[in-house]
């Protein structure tokens, strides 16, 4: 039932064997992308998720939900300067359903090759590749490195961006600046089925890039005025918990206090640097980011490096990624558990992409994951989890 949209979409895809259909004299183009994924997690003590937008994940089992997704995009070239783009996407969402959502809907205006304006619902590319995370066909991995991209769940903003390009020296210098309001939901990390609304969070930022020969370097900074809203029922439950904890010795008042603090509006500052080297069959990417929040315990430093080398139609790759927080003792927030909350984990991934036909790629990937603090990127964690998991994935990525 929950996957009926996706199945309908895939059935549609099967019917129309024509690829990237041009309609109305080439002015309107319909295209799509998708992934059929199967993921197995060796550990039955923690659910593996791809990003914090997913409410649950496989633990000791196989799952098709981690990577499977489908997107459809309509490009309407109104004239040489103006294009309208609408994209819908279906993926395992915050409620564990495949309900389609509007990922982009914007007008792109390029009065000149050096200037581009977009207005409407646009992809948020705080980091290199972050606005193409759903398009598995566009990268080597089964999914973008989870330690780096996994806790960034805002994929789009309602607002605008401007891109300015100019040749400098031997290369191109370009910058993009964006501002807008988020409209996204995220499931509770506690596995209680609650959904929080980040709509109304404001985002402003940009990045500067220099591209020359086989290199690209990006420096970016973004400020998010983050706000999260829970349902009235959830807030009433929280009030009751607060009451109960104020007199019961079994409950530490620090717990409801901590939960309530997650709904405080606060500023998040993100800075990042990315380097990509791409020469013939060799692809190297390295990124580093710092996320600064009120209080040092949950500031996140994250990084990854990935190297791939194409040999005919097979590209083996290896990726090392990690994220670090100072963390906090669970007991400090009133949870009767040893250990620390936070987001310190690292992953070694090895895999291969096989381009088996036009617009069709098969990937297999093995991830060796080790978590020291498993705050956000695993679900339904058992208290005795040793922090280790081996993830095996086999994905089919396509575009049409």
């Amino acid at each position, binding site marked *: 039932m929950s996957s009926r949209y996706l199945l309908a979409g895939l059935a549609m895809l099967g019917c129309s064997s024509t690829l990237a259909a041009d309609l109305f004299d080439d002015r309107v183009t319909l295209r799509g992308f998708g992934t059929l994924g199967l993921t197995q997690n060796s550990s039955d003590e923690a659910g593996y998720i791809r990003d914090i937008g997913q409410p649950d994940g496989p633990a000791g089992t196989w799952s098709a939900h981690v990577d499977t997704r489908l997107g459809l*995009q309509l*490009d309407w070239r109104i004239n040489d300067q103006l294009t309208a783009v609408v994209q819908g996407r279906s993926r395992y969402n915050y409620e564990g359903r495949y309900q389609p959502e509007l990922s982009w809907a914007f007008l792109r205006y390029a009065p000149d*090759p*050096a200037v581009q304006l977009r207005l409407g619902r646009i992809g948020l590319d705080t980091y290199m590749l972050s606005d193409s995370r759903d*398009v598995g066909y566009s*990268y080597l991995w089964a999914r973008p490195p989870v330690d780096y991209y996994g806790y960034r769940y805002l994929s789009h903003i309602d607002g605008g961006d401007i891109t300015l390009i100019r040749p400098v020296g031997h290369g191109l210098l370009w910058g993009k600046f964006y501002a807008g309001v988020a409209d996204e939901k995220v499931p509770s990390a506690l596995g209680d089925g609650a959904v929080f609304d980040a709509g109304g969070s404001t985002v402003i930022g940009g990045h500067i890039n220099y591209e020359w020969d086989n290199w690209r370097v990006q420096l970016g900074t973004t400020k998010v005025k983050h706000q999260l809203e829970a349902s009235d029922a959830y807030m009433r439950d929280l009030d009751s918990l607060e009451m109960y904890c104020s007199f019961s010795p079994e409950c530490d008042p620090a717990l409801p206090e901590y939960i309530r603090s997650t709904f405080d509006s606060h500023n998040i500052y993100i800075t990042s640097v990315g380097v990509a080297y791409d020469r013939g069959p060799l692809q190297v990417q390295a990124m580093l980011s710092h996320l600064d929040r009120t209080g040092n315990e949950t500031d996140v430093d994250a990084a990854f490096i990935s190297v791939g080398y194409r040999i005919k*139609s097979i590209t083996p790759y290896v990726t090392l990624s990690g994220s670090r927080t100072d963390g906090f003792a669970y007991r400090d927030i009133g949870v009767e558990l040893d250990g620390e909350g936070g987001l310190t984990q690292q992953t070694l991934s090895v895999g291969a992409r096989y381009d088996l036909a036009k617009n069709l790629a098969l990937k297999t990937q093995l991830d060796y994951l080790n978590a020291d603090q498993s705050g956000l990127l695993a679900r339904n964690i058992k208290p005795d989890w040793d922090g280790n998991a081996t993830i095996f994935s086999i994905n089919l990525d396509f575009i049409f």
Partner: protein
Amino acid sequence: MKILSVAFLSCLLLAGFARADIAVVVTVDSPLRTVSQNDLINVFMGRYRRLPTGETALPVDLSPLKARFYRALVDKDLAEINSYWARLIFSGQASPPLQMQESDEMLQYIRRNPGALGYLDAAAVPDDVRIVLQLSERQAP
């Protein structure tokens, strides 16, 4: 005998040369005389579509020759080019070059549009278009 074998060898070399080149062409009406490989990469990879003459570039891909062209231009095969464009298209950043099946169709488009850039086998370039760059297929950048 010696002269003959030299002639034979030159013939072989010339034949190899002719087969191994791709000509990047514009209409003879275009003010563009020459374009660097770097500029051509910017135009065809959707990074910056302004020609040295100041005009907006309108790149055209010719399907039968596409694999050879991108191999010569950036040493990549079509799966990698498609994967590259998947990122730009589905993030809504840029549109790929126009795709054309027939060289006649492409030549007509080039004749009509001074900013249009296409490519042909160097051995089959008609008189009314100008070669602005010859890409050798034997050496990658």
